[in-house]
């Protein structure tokens, strides 16, 4: 059996899969290189509702890899991304929070999501968000990322079920630094992994 984890839907089943995604609600924390790209992939995949959170504004340097445009520099990322996603599909429901997410607000903002995507930049924030989600949103799958920087092999970026409700995307070790900057291509690979693992979880296939 060549594809044991990828049952191919019959044509009449495809509509049912799209309907399932359409009734789904996904949270994305951080709307930078990972989160902004995860958001458009989930929008195109037909996810019905996205809960989007970031505290930042679009910077000119973000255009190297994030889903924003030159005329959006200076705008809040939540507002700019809303405009961009609506240009893909007017039907998608968006709940936007211009806020830094931490233990004090994560459960209020993301209560009821089917999957939570961790897409923040700092290692400390990644650990804090996974811990807070595990404590306050029990049973909600978390798709996180760690190790996406530099020009290493695309094939070192993988998705693994790490522990509990946590799935982890990345090569686990490539930390962003002056010597290992973020490249649009490798970040997009990781974003694609996160978006696709999210789709699989929504469709009931938790195997990475």
């Amino acid at each position, binding site marked *: 059996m060549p594809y044991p984890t990828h049952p191919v839907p019959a044509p009449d089943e495809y509509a049912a899969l799209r309907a399932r995604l359409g009734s789904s609600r996904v949270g994305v924390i951080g709307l930078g290189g990972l989160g902004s790209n995860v958001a458009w992939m989930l929008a195109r995949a037909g996810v019905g509702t996205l809960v989007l959170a970031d505290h930042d504004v679009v910077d000119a340097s973000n255009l190297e890899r994030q889903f924003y445009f030159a005329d959006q520099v200076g705008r809040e990322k939540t507002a700019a991304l809303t405009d961009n996603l609506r240009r893909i599909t007017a039907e998608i429901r968006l709940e936007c929070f211009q806020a830094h997410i931490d233990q004090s607000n994560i459960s209020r903002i993301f209560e009821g999501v089917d999957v939570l995507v961790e897409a*923040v930049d*700092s290692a400390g924030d*990644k650990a804090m968000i996974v811990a807070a989600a595990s*404590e306050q949103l029990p049973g909600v799958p978390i798709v996180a990322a*760690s190790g996406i920087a530099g020009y290493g092999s695309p094939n070192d970026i993988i998705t693994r079920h790490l522990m509990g409700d946590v799935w982890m995307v990345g090569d686990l070790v490539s930390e*962003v630094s002056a010597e290992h900057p973020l490249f649009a291509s490798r970040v997009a690979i990781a974003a694609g992994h996160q978006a696709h693992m999210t789709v699989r979880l929504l469709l009931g296939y938790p195997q990475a």
Partner: protein
Amino acid sequence: MQIELALFAHLTSYLPPAGADDGPGSSHARPMDLPDGTTVGQVIARLDLPVGPRIVFVNGRHAPDSHSLANGDRLAIFPPVAGG
């Protein structure tokens, strides 16, 4: 008591040596004998793990350093790195 210790990414080099009876096991997990009531923080200190952010789970749920471990627990520690 005995727990299972799983360390990920660059932390795998801090795993205690495998015992002769441990079998093939996993490359990132080992059984570890500890005094009853040992806390997560005490295990981290005993392993002399490097300072830095950590995702720490016991039996699939986040656990603080003050959490007291019990026989048969699975302690998993993952060190996230920056980039997003």
